[in-house]
């Protein structure tokens, strides 16, 4: 399908003998926010780290099955190439402390040795910071170090850094769990605008956030994809009993 960005087929992941993900099948379409929710340890973080092959960095990690990003088999390419096509934002904001805000945004280019003329970089920085709703706050202090910003601003900087590479899909691993409520709601509003530009896969342990922000939700439990569907339906008429129990707080 032309509209599919990500296709996960019969995908399993192991750490040593531990089977963390069990035969996951998932299709994500373009320009939506898809939330992955589930209790701690269910495998949702492992899943998104498989999508940009970061889980491989842990010794003893194995996978089986396929993942296709825009019809490219991600295991048929170099991890470095894949990671430049997939943006990732982490739980704890992690701007590079030795670089200025400007340098942080284009870090993906600079660190990879990709050269561009200066005004092109200027344009990329402005566009990315605007998309991350941070431009107006930092446009006069681009030369200052990124670590001087507040938590919410740092996280938006990390989002801008990921967006600057024009990724096919943006992976977000509990991006607001380390932030205060005001920054959290600012970033949630950002998602709604951002999805016009890029598809987003959001891992969250906050059920209400998944309900507020996403178009589609996946419920993962003990490594299995229990249910995946439009958010409105998931939260009003879930199909699986386990989903219902999770939503009503019986576990997790």
């Amino acid at each position: 399908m032309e509209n599919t960005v990500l296709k996960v087929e019969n995908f399993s992941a192991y750490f040593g003998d531990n089977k963390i993900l069990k035969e996951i099948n998932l299709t994500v379409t373009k320009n939506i926010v898809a939330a992955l929710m589930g209790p701690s340890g269910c495998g949702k973080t492992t899943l998104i780290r498989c999508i940009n092959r970061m889980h491989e960095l842990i010794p003893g990690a194995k996978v089986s099955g396929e993942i296709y990003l825009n019809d490219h088999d991600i295991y048929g390419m170099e991890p470095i190439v894949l990671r430049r096509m997939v943006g990732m934002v982490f739980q704890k904001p992690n701007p590079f402390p030795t670089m200025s805000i400007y340098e942080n945004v284009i870090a993906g280019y600079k660190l990879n040795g990709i050269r561009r003329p200066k005004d092109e970089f200027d344009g990329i920085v402005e566009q990315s910071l605007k998309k991350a709703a941070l431009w107006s706050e930092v446009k006069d202090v681009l030369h200052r170090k990124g670590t001087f910003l507040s938590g919410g601003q740092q996280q938006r900087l990390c989002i801008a850094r990921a967006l600057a590479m024009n990724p096919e899909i943006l992976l977000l691993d509990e991006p607001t769990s380390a932030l205060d409520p005001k920054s959290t709601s600012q970033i949630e509003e950002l998602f709604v605008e951002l999805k016009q530009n890029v598809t987003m896969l959001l891992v969250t342990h906050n059920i209400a956030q998944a309900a507020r922000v996403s178009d589609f939700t996946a419920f993962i439990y003990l490594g299995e994809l229990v249910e995946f569907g439009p958010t409105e339906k998931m939260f009003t008429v879930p199909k699986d009993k386990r989903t219902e129990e999770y939503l009503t707080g019986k576990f997790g």
Partner: protein
Amino acid sequence: MLEQEKITELKKELIAFGTLAETMIAKSIRGLLKKEKATLREIIEEREPEANAFEIKIEELCVSVIAQYQPMAKELRTVLMIFKMASDIERIGDHAVNIAESALFLMDKQPVKPLIDIPRMADETTKSVDDAIMAFINEDALQAKNVCERDDIIDGLQVQIFRELTTFMTSDPTTIERALHLIRIASNLERIADLATNISEDVIFMVEGRVIKHHREEGSNP
């Protein structure tokens, strides 16, 4: 904010629904007075299914908003009251349909008497419904309170119509069938006014958090 946008959308839907109901009342009375068959048919065949669809849509939207956004305080009251008001407005529509049906029956029959009180009652009822919806749009508790207080006037009119037509029926049994339809129309108008009162009570709860239903002010008739 996403939540705000969804609630605004919900309000707009309810206002549109209210407007539809008002149209149905107006057309049914016009159809009665001007003997317009097509208008009355339109209410029964097209507007009624539309009203049912509106009610379902608004209810589903309310459920989603609560599930997805967990609104609090005034927003919670707003969503809950909109859910309730949708049901009331749908019943208003049903009563308008009843009026249209009776009007269709009376269409080609001899009038029992010149229609004076029924149009008057219809005016008062229409005003109540309109005021109730305006009170919702403007979040005006005072205006809503007025609607509740005027309900007695409309009740009084209904009693009057009932008494008058009863006299006709006892003196001339051939008028019974027609008179009964006229009484039916008056009863439906009275029920519409009651529903407008319900809506107003819901508006007051939405705005102030006060429950005034099942509670009579001192000095009014029980």
